[in-house]
């Protein structure tokens, strides 16, 4: 795609000009995107490449629990697992972050301490995003104040689907501001699109550009609460967007597929796609993450299989 560097101030000066820009983005070839994703899923990754991919995937996991029934005990257990995913093997790397509801940030922060595992908190009336702007901002400030390193916000899909793009843009800007800490640093902002509700790949491309122009550090597919969650072709469109965005602005934005990725095999397919579409620069937990819970155990089982030479089972890993 050869979009020229947009003058962000001008593009976002009115709803109409923002719409003109977003609808001026080239359309996504749906059949092509699906075929490309399917083709990339057929690559054979074996032996040392597989070992590398599994360890990399572990370091990219945002270990997630977003349930109404979450308790401090569960968050502590999950945090312990995030630091030492395989207690039997000290060479196993830690995951990137734990992803939790805002009221659990303090508990997670206390357990994780200075381990380097980050605390990501969902915010802005997750998962529906149906609340007043002030409430969403208060939700975000609250999570940041509690010590969250990363904020996973949801966009207002209702506003986006009814064409009120500027509203969505301004909301992301406002949340980004709310991510600021008193010391001048800021929590990283991930913007969740909920691609399962956006209907078309064109919409995914538009919201990707909109979120990146608004200053998202990461763009994320889904909340995990809506089916379908992350899909290969949907993520492919987002990877193209971050690649093109860097080409024209020089700013690098991360991508996080979340929900529905349960098997190591799928995770490895995503890594292949990241490498082929966005480039090797994105093969880093700073720029690509998996939002997942059950995926980690499967990665650990595969890792153990490769190290020991025999198949292992779920009995030997924690339930979470």
């Amino acid at each position: 795609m050869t979009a020229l560097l947009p003058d962000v101030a001008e593009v976002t000066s009115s709803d109409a000009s923002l719409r003109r820009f977003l609808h001026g983005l080239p359309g996504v070839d749906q059949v092509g995107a699906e075929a490309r994703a399917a083709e990339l899923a057929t690559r054979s990754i074996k032996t040392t490449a597989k070992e590398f991919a599994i360890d990399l995937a572990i370091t990219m996991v945002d270990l997630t629990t977003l349930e109404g029934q979450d308790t401090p005990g569960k968050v502590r257990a999950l945090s312990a697992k995030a630091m030492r995913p395989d207690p039997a093997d000290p060479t196993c790397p830690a995951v990137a972050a734990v992803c939790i509801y805002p009221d659990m940030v303090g508990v997670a922060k206390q357990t994780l301490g200075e381990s380097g595992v980050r605390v990501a908190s969902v915010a802005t009336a997750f998962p529906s995003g149906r609340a007043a702007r002030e409430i969403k901002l208060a939700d975000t400030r609250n999570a940041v104040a509690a010590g969250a390193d990363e904020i996973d916000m949801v966009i207002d899909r209702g506003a986006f689907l009814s064409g009120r793009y500027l509203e969505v843009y301004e909301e992301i800007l406002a949340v980004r501001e709310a991510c600021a800490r008193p010391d001048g640093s800021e929590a990283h902002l991930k913007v969740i699109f909920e691609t399962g509700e956006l209907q078309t790949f064109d919409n995914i491309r538009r919201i990707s550009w909109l979120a990146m122009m608004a200053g998202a550090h990461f763009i994320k597919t889904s909340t995990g609460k809506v089916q379908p969650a992350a899909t290969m072709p949907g993520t492919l469109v987002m990877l193209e967007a971050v690649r093109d965005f860097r080409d024209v602005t020089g700013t690098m934005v991360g991508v996080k597929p979340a929900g529905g990725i349960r098997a190591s095999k799928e995770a490895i397919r995503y890594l292949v796609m990241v490498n082929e579409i966005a480039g090797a620069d994105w093969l880093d937990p700073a720029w690509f993450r998996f939002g997942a819970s059950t995926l980690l155990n499967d990665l650990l089982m595969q890792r153990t299989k490769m190290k020991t030479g025999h198949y292992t089972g779920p009995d030997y890993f924690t339930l979470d």
Partner: protein
Amino acid sequence: MPSSGERIEVRKTYKLYIGGAFPRSESGRSYEVHDSKGRFLANAAQASRKDARDADVAARKAFGGWSAKTAYNRGQVVYRVAELLEGRRIQFVDEVQRGEGLSRRQAERVVDLSVDRLVWYAGWADKVAQVVGSANPVAGPYFNFSLPEPTGAVAMVAPEDSSLLGLVSVLAPAVVTGNTVVVVTSYSRPLPAITLSEVLATSDVPGGVVNMLTGSAAEIAPWLASHMDVNAIDLTGVEDAELARALEESAAQNLKRVRRPGPVDWAAEPGIDRLASFLETKTVWHPIGI
């Protein structure tokens, strides 16, 4: 329709049986199966270690539901398998006769015995607990019970020679007591096992309770023996003593229950030995009611 009355030969594709479905081997391999006189019978799928892994995943998944059924219900299901096997007896007689080189009469006898064996084990389903379990005398105001529970996912190497009766005789006792199984069938005579899978698939046995892998035990069994998510292994069909020893050693890794190979007269009444092979005893204390 050709008017000459000549038909195109419709050959059967023998595939694996994993999780209630009939997939080809993941490896894409197959091997030729010959009758007792060396004539070509069919191509059978040659299972790989990944098929064994998939089969174990299916068995593990099916274990919760199958072991939670009442013993009475499991007995009914196994009896239903006997009913359906009886209904397809001609096909089984045919396959056993050609595969094992028996006379028509002998093959019929083998199928009869196989059906009867299923019925016999079906009857044991809700009786084995009374025989191998117990109410233990204790010095205190408690009941103390020892109860048999299924071991879990069981890998089995089926007998090489007795391809139907031997198979049924190792399969039925493990299944009727609530285990789920991954069977490596007879290598040289795999066809009755696959036809039996078709019977299982159309009876009331839930998918994944029985999984059949046709192929080489020497290739597949070591992966099952060392598999940490397999709870027991039955080595009945392992004829190579070296291999049996190696399998037993790998099985020690996660303390699998092992049943060693040994000569068996499949036509004789089996006794309850095999029923007890894959049962664990749980002993519970229970206060006497107030």
